[in-house]
């Protein structure tokens, strides 16, 4: 071929090359355009989840009881890790995770594994100090309870994904949770996120969870926790409950549940350290036979129906009474007592005699009116209605047994609400734990007002019963309940538990209780104390009454309620 020919050939070949490239370009830009653009978009864009903050739970004075905080979770990319065994060894030491489990995760085929979630900030720092490029960190929200065990069984706890599992965390989970948001962001070549802004910027802001304000007072809760735990430990008991309630409104200022003696109080920061029964709020989930504290229902009903007068004399000298086919005894011999002393000295015989005057129908009506046999509706999960037989199913002896608080199962919260009736002039109030829900978005929150369930007895009857209950403390079985400087009214209870194996009343296991209100002249607090299976001394007057006294004295002083019963010493001061 001659020179000119060769030149033409080269030019033609080059031209063909360009044409092919141009053709390919056209192909890519025009034909495959949509498909390639979509793939690029997928690679460049990502949806970033904006986690909502779980709401905070406060006590009535806005002190934090449950707060969420972002902490770091540690993850690894197994495909990049060169020496999984060594890494597992180092990490298990710092993070306190099982080495074998970690090693298994780090040698798996996955692109991403969690090494340890929501770790303590100090430990995360130590992992960072290792300087390994094969572990990464991501922030996740974790729940903290800064007051540790205080009100633990009321607050409950959350799971690893911040879902409420028990207590108020569960019953108010929807309010606390909020709604996650998202934003469509772009990723650059190195993976950094860039928010494009401008029109077409797509996002949805997260909606923060609502805050919840409780009726609980942190200080009174602490007082109740402390005094109850002391009594349970001293008595080597299986547990206990202490409730402090405002009788006028039904607000619960303290709801304390003690674990068995020797066991630590339930701390929701570490639920895995406890056995499953120990985070149950036994104030609402468990029944017990109330024993003598239930006698107050007979007293109130009988006085309201005017079948007895407080000073009427009742013959209890027989020491026992036959009801249908059973004989019920008094704990100790009494003579002829006024009805007031029947209550003050807790005579079974006297109480049953008056209950028989009432009759089954009327008595059953008052039991229900006081709230027994159905749930109080308190806003914590797990409440049961108690065990109360319909009056049509009562046997001949039932009226006698129930009058002295046996053959009936009640929850501590029901008893507290019932004594609230006597303390506030005759109305049954609904006990509640949450007073307000605060909307984080600035919207209108929710306020919970006291709710009246129904009128049970008149104010006059309340005054008469109150005098009798004051007598219990002044000269009856409840002397150790008397708070210094304040008048008080209440009732002791020493009830046999039912032996689970035999189904009969146990001779060794008792529930000791004391419940009442202070000051008696103008009640501000209802206080209930229940100690489950104390060893040795079992009487409500000696095991539970001192707790009532301590809680009453300290709580009233904290609330700055003026003493109303100072006995002899009084200074008169000129202004």
């Amino acid at each position, binding site marked *: 071929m001659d020179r000119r020919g060769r030149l033409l050939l080269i030019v033609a070949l080059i031209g063909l090359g360009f044409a092919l490239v141009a053709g390919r370009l056209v192909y890519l830009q025009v034909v495959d355009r949509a498909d390639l653009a979509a793939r690029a978009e997928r690679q460049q864009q990502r949806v970033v989840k904006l986690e909502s903050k779980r709401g905070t739970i406060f006590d009535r004075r806005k002190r934090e009881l449950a707060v969420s905080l972002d902490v770091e979770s540690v993850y690894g990319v197994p495909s990049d890790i060169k020496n999984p065994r060594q890494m597992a060894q180092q990490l298990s030491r710092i993070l306190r995770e099982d080495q074998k489990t970690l090693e298994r995760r780090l040698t798996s085929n996955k692109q991403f594994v969690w090494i340890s979630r929501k770790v303590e900030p100090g430990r995360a720092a130590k992992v960072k100090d290792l300087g390994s490029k094969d572990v990464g960190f991501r922030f996740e929200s974790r729940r903290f309870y800064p*007051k*540790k065990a205080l009100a633990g069984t009321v607050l409950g706890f959350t799971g690893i994904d911040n879902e409420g599992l028990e207590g108020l965390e569960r019953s108010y989970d929807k309010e606390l949770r909020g709604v996650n948001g998202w934003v469509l962001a772009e990723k650059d070549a190195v993976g950094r996120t*860039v928010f494009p802004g401008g029109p077409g910027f797509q996002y949805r802001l997260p909606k923060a969870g609502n805050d919840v304000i409780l009726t609980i007072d*942190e200080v009174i809760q602490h007082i109740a926790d402390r005094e109850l735990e002391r009594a349970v430990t001293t008595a080597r008991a299986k547990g206990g409950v202490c409730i402090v309630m405002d009788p006028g409104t039904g607000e619960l200022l303290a709801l304390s549940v003690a674990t068995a003696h020797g066991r630590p109080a339930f701390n929701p920061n570490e639920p895995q350290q406890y056995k499953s029964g120990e985070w149950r709020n036994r104030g609402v989930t468990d029944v017990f036979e109330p024993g003598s504290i239930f006698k107050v229902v007979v007293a109130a009903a009988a006085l309201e129906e005017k079948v007895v007068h407080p000073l009427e004399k009742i013959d209890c000298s027989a020491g026992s009474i036959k009801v249908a086919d059973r004989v019920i005894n008094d704990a100790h011999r009494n003579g002829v007592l006024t009805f007031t002393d029947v209550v003050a000295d807790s005579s079974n015989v006297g109480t049953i005699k008056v209950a028989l005057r009432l009759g089954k129908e009327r008595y059953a009506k008052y039991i229900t009116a006081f709230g027994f046999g159905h749930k109080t509706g308190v806003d914590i999960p797990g409440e049961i209605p108690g065990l109360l037989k319909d009056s049509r199913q009562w046997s001949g002896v039932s009226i006698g047994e129930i009058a002295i608080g046996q053959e009936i199962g009640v929850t501590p919260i029901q008893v507290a609400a019932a004594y609230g009736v006597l303390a506030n002039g005759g109305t049954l109030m609904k006990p509640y734990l949450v007073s307000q829900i605060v909307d984080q978005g600035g919207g209108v929150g929710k306020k919970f007002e006291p709710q009246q369930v129904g009128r049970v007895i008149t104010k006059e009857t309340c005054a008469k019963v109150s005098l009798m209950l004051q007598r219990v403390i002044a000269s009856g079985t409840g002397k150790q309940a008397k708070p210094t400087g304040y008048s008080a009214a209440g009732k002791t209870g020493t009830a046999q538990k039912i032996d689970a194996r035999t189904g009969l009343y146990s001779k060794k296991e008792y529930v000791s209780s004391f419940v009442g209100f202070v000051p008696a002249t103008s009640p501000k607090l209802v206080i209930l104390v229940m100690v489950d299976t104390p060893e040795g001394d079992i009487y409500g007057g000696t095991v539970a009454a001192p707790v009532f006294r301590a809680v009453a004295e300290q709580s009233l002083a904290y609330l700055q309620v003026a003493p109303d019963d100072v006995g002899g*010493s009084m200074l008169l*001061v000129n*202004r």
Partner: protein
Amino acid sequence: MVVLVIVAALLLYVGGKVKIVQLGYQIEALEKEKSDLERENRSLRIEAASLSSPARIEEIALKRLGLVRIAKENLIVVKRQSQQQRAK
């Protein structure tokens, strides 16, 4: 001449786009700083709440500071004289 103008315009255009991306990085850095500070704030709030728990304060008061609970003997109730009593 026209080519120069076109090139200048293109440079300005690209320069603008680059600036937008740079500002985006800055915004992200500031957002990160903001959320770091917010996180630290929350962490300190929790720490403050924990330090002020009644159980802890009580223990410090009783054990370290040697404070005692008020004994009943040291409580004296003082009642103000009413108007009529003073007039006597």
